[in-house]
């Protein structure tokens, strides 16, 4: 029984942290309409600032706390609002908002690594970890402070929202920012205040929990997942329910840790994944969609006709053979970079199919790739390569469909959250599991060997991957030109209207999820072969995130965007290590890669057609002189009926 109470108190202390973090998340979400995936990373960054002041510079604890939470945190929040969020909110689609906060997450991680490096640090407990005893239970002062802080935050927020003019104004902005403006209050003032408040709460939560963990970039950024779960239980709008959700999540997490058997490796691996399981359960219980989602459609370039793209593909494949030989002649590592660029391009095209075409954001595409690689690696030698490849793709597709099935009624942020939960779950449960990896920390994956034709040299891998990219690109274009593709675009722009005209939205979503995941699995199997061995590091959740972000930078709607994005993704680390030669190159690569990708994604997120779209706008008029290409269509001029509709609005 004592064990129960000990863990109950631990659970309450964790709940308190989750509650503080989750309310910050909900406050910013409600007032600005942006669900901040970077909330945890923001807290992480502030915890590092606090460490810098209190430990590294030896400031007294109260002073360091005041400066971090009451000066730096609000400044950071307001800065984010002014520089990033405010430019977004008007008419931004849910996917755009998602991408921007994900990019912020990556940027904060990169920034923290760039400033503080990768070494592990610890943050001391308040009162040096001293404890006191009540009823035979020893309780630390740190736990007591944590719980009291959460209660104080709850009470303070209640007073703020009920009693003060600014608090009432924050609630008013939720109802109608425009009406606020006509009443003489700039909505910018209110959202700025709420971002400041959000940052303070994020920082407070991180500082409270950091002493129990290492002060480390990833752990602290992901800690917020439990806060997400609490926020989802509160339906992202109800603060008391969010508090209750935090208690449920914190206590059940502590109980699972206390009473789950610790002998089995699967169970061991499950432990860190508990928050993600709880998040997924929370999503299924409470994730119904009541959010107004403004669809903002984007102009898609008309795809060239099939004969042209297949012809172009054949030319590319033919050229890839001498190109691979030339590249291999220059240096092996260049060839390898080229090949992995092709592999990532194939995976990115799958993402374009899902996110660009059907508007569903997946944060787990590298996980699908990983499943493909693992299945291929585990396949007995007696199975012919091609059959094994198809099985790998099918397994990845089935996993995709199984995950999509419950998540399919979720849209926007909820779907993204559940795919994130799964990506992290698979990181722990499958890709880091030595049972799955055959006892070691990596699993060997074979290269193509089709009916006696051994395609195992580096050069032939490049050609094989080029063939796959050409194939995927044509599959994507065929889908886009087909009735299925039109249904997907319709669904992306308005799911409600699509249902109204008799479309089975669920079936379409499942189909495209299956197709995209299985192709990603196939590409992943080949990527595994290219690398010869795969392990946990190859498919980490933030790789999925990076792939999504580079795809957005270069254009999430087109094949050219996917290609450019993938090559940027593989070339960037090489450039960084060249630049930083002699210095601490691992740290620089680790820090600056996410930072650069994150900042670029923030800068370009507002245009879904991305950099590739801008290049296309310039190139198309020149290309249209060539025979066989469709006429260039500039930025769509509104048609006559559209004008009338717009006029009718006044």
């Amino acid at each position, binding site marked *: 029984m004592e064990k129960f109470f000990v863990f109950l108190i631990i659970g309450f202390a964790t709940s308190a942290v989750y509650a503080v973090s989750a309310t910050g998340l909900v406050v910013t979400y409600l007032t600005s309409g942006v669900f901040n995936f970077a909330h945890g990373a923001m807290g992480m960054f502030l915890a590092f600032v606090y460490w810098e002041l209190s430990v590294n510079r030896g400031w007294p604890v109260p002073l360091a706390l005041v400066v971090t939470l009451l000066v730096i945190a609000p400044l950071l929040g307001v800065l984010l609002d002014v520089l990033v969020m405010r430019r977004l909110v008007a008419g931004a689609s849910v996917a755009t908002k998602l991408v921007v906060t994900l990019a912020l997450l990556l940027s904060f991680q990169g920034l923290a690594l760039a400033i503080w490096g990768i070494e592990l640090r610890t943050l001391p407990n308040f009162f040096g970890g001293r404890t006191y005893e009540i009823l035979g239970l020893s309780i630390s002062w740190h736990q007591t402070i944590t719980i009291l802080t959460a209660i104080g935050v709850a009470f303070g927020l209640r007073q703020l929202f009920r009693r003060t003019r600014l608090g009432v104004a924050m609630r008013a902005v939720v109802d109608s920012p425009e009406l606020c*403006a006509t009443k003489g209050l700039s909505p910018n003032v209110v959202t700025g205040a709420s971002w400041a408040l959000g940052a303070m709460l994020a920082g407070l939560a991180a500082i409270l929990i950091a002493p129990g963990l290492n002060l480390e970039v990833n752990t602290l950024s992901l800690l917020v997942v439990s806060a997400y779960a609490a926020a989802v239980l509160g339906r992202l709008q109800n603060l008391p329910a969010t508090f209750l959700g935090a208690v449920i999540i914190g206590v059940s997490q502590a109980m699972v840790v206390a009473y789950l058997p610790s002998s089995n490796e699967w169970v061991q691996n499950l432990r860190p994944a508990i928050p993600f399981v709880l998040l997924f359960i929370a999503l299924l219980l409470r994730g119904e969609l009541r959010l107004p989602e403004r669809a903002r459609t984007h102009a898609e370039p008309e795809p060239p006709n099939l004969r042209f793209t297949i012809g172009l593909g054949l030319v590319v494949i033919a050229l890839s053979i001498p190109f691979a030989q030339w590249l291999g002649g220059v240096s092996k590592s260049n060839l390898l970079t080229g090949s992995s660029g092709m592999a990532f391009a194939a995976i990115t095209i799958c993402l374009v199919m899902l996110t660009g075409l059907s508007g569903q954001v997946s944060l787990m595409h590298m996980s699908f790739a990983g499943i493909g690689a693992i299945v291929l690696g585990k396949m007995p030698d007696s199975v012919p390569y091609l059959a094994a490849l198809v099985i790998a793709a099918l397994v990845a597709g089935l996993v995709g469909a199984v995950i999509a099935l419950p998540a399919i009624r979720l849209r926007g942020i909820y779907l993204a959250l559940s795919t994130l939960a799964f990506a992290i779950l698979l990181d722990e449960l499958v890709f880091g599991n030595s049972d799955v990896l055959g006892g070691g920390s990596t699993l060997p994956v074979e290269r193509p060997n089709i009916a006696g034709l051994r395609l195992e040299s580096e050069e032939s891998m490049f050609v094989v991957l080029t063939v796959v990219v050409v194939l995927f690109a044509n599959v994507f274009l065929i889908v886009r030109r087909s009735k299925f593709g039109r249904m997907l675009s319709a669904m992306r722009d308005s799911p409600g209207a699509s249902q109204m005209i008799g479309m089975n939205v669920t079936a379409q979503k499942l189909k495209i999820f299956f197709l995209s995941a299985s192709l990603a699995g196939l590409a992943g199997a080949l990527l595994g072969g290219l690398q010869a061995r795969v392990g946990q590091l190859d498919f980490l959740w933030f790789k999925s995130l990076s792939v999504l972000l580079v795809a957005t930078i270069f254009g999430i709607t087109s094949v050219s965007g996917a290609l450019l994005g993938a090559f940027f993704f593989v070339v960037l680390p090489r450039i960084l290590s060249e630049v930083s030669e002699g210095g601490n190159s691992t740290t620089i690569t680790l820090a600056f890669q996410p930072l650069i990708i994150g900042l670029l994604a923030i800068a370009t997120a507002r245009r879904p057609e991305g950099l590739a779209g801008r290049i296309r706008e310039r190139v198309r008029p020149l290309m249209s002189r060539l025979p066989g290409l469709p006429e260039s269509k500039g930025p769509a001029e509104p048609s006559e009926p559209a004008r009338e509709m717009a*006029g009718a609005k006044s």
Partner: protein
Amino acid sequence: MPRAKAQRTPKDNGAAEAPLLELRGIRAAYESVEVLHGIDFSVEAGSLLAILGPNGAGKSTTLRVIAGLMQPKSGQLLLDGHDVTGASADQLARAGICLIPEGRGIFPNLTVRENMLMDAYSGDGRSPSDLEEAAYTQFPRLGERRDQVAGTLSGGEQQMLSLSRAFSTDPAIILLDELSMGLAPVIVEELFQVVGHLTTTGVTIVVVEQFAGAVLDLADRVASNCSAVVMAQGSVRLRGAPRKIKRELATAYLGGT
């Protein structure tokens, strides 16, 4: 930006005095589609202007431009002789422009009292309790419902709450956008009486209505100093005294002139 004066003292009211509100060649567009093609009109202090016109004429857009919710592509907006083109909605609200928007201009999740707390931002320094008192004097029914969540009020009561700001914050100009929309005729009648009462306080009013008859009758009734413009397809087609407009209305609506 100085707050425009609600009423002028007789001394101010010289012939050379600039109009309280003036639009000069206002053009406005939703993205690339221009919906206002150069609107010119002015409103004298203490007068009532009715903007009439069929659906899609640009009436509400004109009000949105005046209230600062939409920035014009070109042209000038003058308030009390000052050029306020490009000012934001909240600045204009504090300068004395009071828009009662179409639909329901309330915060549905806030209580009646909290809604009025929001009015204090444009209340020229009046305390929230003064604002409440002024509103309850005009609409006693709101006083009975002060702690009720505004979204649960009846349509008429919601419109009263929206309108209460016109009484409590002492604005210079009140912009009324489709006051009658979605309400029962008997309530519309009641609200028009309230507006009639407003005109006697000497405040300047701009009314937008689709139902031209009702508003012209109102203008006629309070007739001390009123005019009307008829808009169609983003331009002013007709302007003059309500009586004259009433005669020519049929032509205007059927696309003549």
